[in-house]
């Protein structure tokens, strides 16, 4: 029993305590070394962030936009290939499957710096489309793995049955595959969204500073002595994905309930 308590304290110290410190830093710009607790709480950084809300929300929305488009792109890119990898046996499948995972394994900097020059030539650099393209290539392996696992979790017979009953391809995708795959889609999308939303270097390289991003907005603050504002902005950064995931969770629960499916 004491061991369990020690473990709980360890987990909280490792993962919750840093957030508590961030929170107090955000509320106490005057916190100086070596005080263990802030002496006075002030709302200066809150006021500053509120005064910057136009710039802040622009960068947040932009990050949100390219992350969501990236999720959508990875999904469209991986759905059919995942069904092939999960259902069909063919020569060279293992090599092709491991090759397809390469962009997530080899350092992203190796291909993104090379493609940067190509993007400048075709006019995709410094634009949303360039960022989405690079983020998609960098993060689709997570979607692919997750969808392959999803396809393996239920038999091809579902599809066959729907086909025998006369369902068209589109109908089978939307009425059979996607509902059954939903847990894997959500898992894959979550990872892809987080990877895209929190990426700093690729967005900075391809976007060249002209496409606003929240990480790009955040970086100068993190690197400055304005610890209070930096802490507050980091907390805001966390709130967005958490509330998004929470909402999705609720919506899904509702949807499953309506379809009579259990998770």
């Amino acid at each position, binding site marked *: 029993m004491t061991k369990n308590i020690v473990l709980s304290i360890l987990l909280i110290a490792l993962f919750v305590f840093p957030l508590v410190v961030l929170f107090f830093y955000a509320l106490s710009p005057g916190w100086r*070394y070596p005080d263990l607790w802030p002496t006075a709480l002030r709302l200066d950084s809150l006021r500053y962030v509120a005064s910057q809300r136009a710039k802040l929300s622009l960068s947040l929305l932009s990050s949100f936009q390219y992350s969501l488009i990236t999720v959508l792109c990875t999904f*469209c890119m991986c759905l059919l290939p995942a069904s092939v990898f999960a259902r069909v046996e063919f020569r060279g499948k293992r090599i092709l499957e491991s090759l397809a995972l390469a962009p997530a*394994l080899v350092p992203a900097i190796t291909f993104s710096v090379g493609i940067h020059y190509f993007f400048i030539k075709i006019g995709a650099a410094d634009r949303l489309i360039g960022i989405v393209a690079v983020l998609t290539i960098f993060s689709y392996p997570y979607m692919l793995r997750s969808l392959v696992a999803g396809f393996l979790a239920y038999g091809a017979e579902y599809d066959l049955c729907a086909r025998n009953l006369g369902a068209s391809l589109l109908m089978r995708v939307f009425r059979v595959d996607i509902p059954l795959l939903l847990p894997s889609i959500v898992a894959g999308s979550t990872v892809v969204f987080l990877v895209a939303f929190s990426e700093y270097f690729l967005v900075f390289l391809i976007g060249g500073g002209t496409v606003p991003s929240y990480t790009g907005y955040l970086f100068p603050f993190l690197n400055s002595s304005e610890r209070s504002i930096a802490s507050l902005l980091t907390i805001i950064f966390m709130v967005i994905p958490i509330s998004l995931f929470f909402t999705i969770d609720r919506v899904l629960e509702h949807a499953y309930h309506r379809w009579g499916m259990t998770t």
Partner: protein
Amino acid sequence: MTSRSVILLKLSPLLVPFTVIFTTGVFLTILQSLGLFMPIPFEGRLFSSYAALFRGSWFYVNLGFSLYCAFVSAVLSVVLGTFLSYVIWRLPPGMQKLSVVSKVPLILPHIAVAFIVLMFFARTGYVSSVLNHLGMIESSSDFPAILFGGNGLGIILAYVYKETPFVMLLVTFMLKKYDHRQIETARMLGATKRTTFFRIVLPFLLPVINTSFIILFLYSFGAFDIPFMIGESHPSMLSIQVYNLYFKRDLINRPQAMAILVVMFAFSLVFIYLYSRIAQRIDIRFRKI
């Protein structure tokens, strides 16, 4: 249509972007490392950027530093992540929910994790404040230089903090499929807690441990965000050396930056190949036992 072309057609949504962006990107990196396809004409010979790279000493120092940081942080994350998920898995179900707090670093971007490390381990950081209050150090200058000390400790700390939850996620997923009764059987047959973990549970987890080690090692080896924020300049990670050559110096240095990237790419491929071969062999030996 033959079934083969149907397969190719169905794979094309993946293969086309893969070829157009990933393969082209790697290809252009290789070409530019040779001085071809440059924005300005390159005057050196075909392999002169490689020759210059291998002649200087900074490349070897930085390569060694990158390997060291990546290796130490990946090993620590894997060990800590496996250990934490195992002990959490042994907790009563109600308390297992506590592990949700470990998701925090997964959500935080790398640059924010670097910021947290900065807040805690800088000379005037939180850990230093605590030590000061405990009377262990007199002033902030007595606190050891964990960050920017030239030993990569700050980078390693940040990676371990960011990556341990990733290992926990994968290992916990694997443990959910594990049959508890195997452990009880081993204990009934007289195995100690330690033997049970090392001989029964660990071999079962080995594949996922290997996968996460490969991912984390290569990621920290080539990533940019964390060393850009809290890394030292000499020695630096290879990605930072590439950044300095590519963005801060003349265009004439670009082939050398690209040559570093080609070496990193080749190293990653060889590493993946060798590691999976070795892991496979170890796995077979475990199965024999």
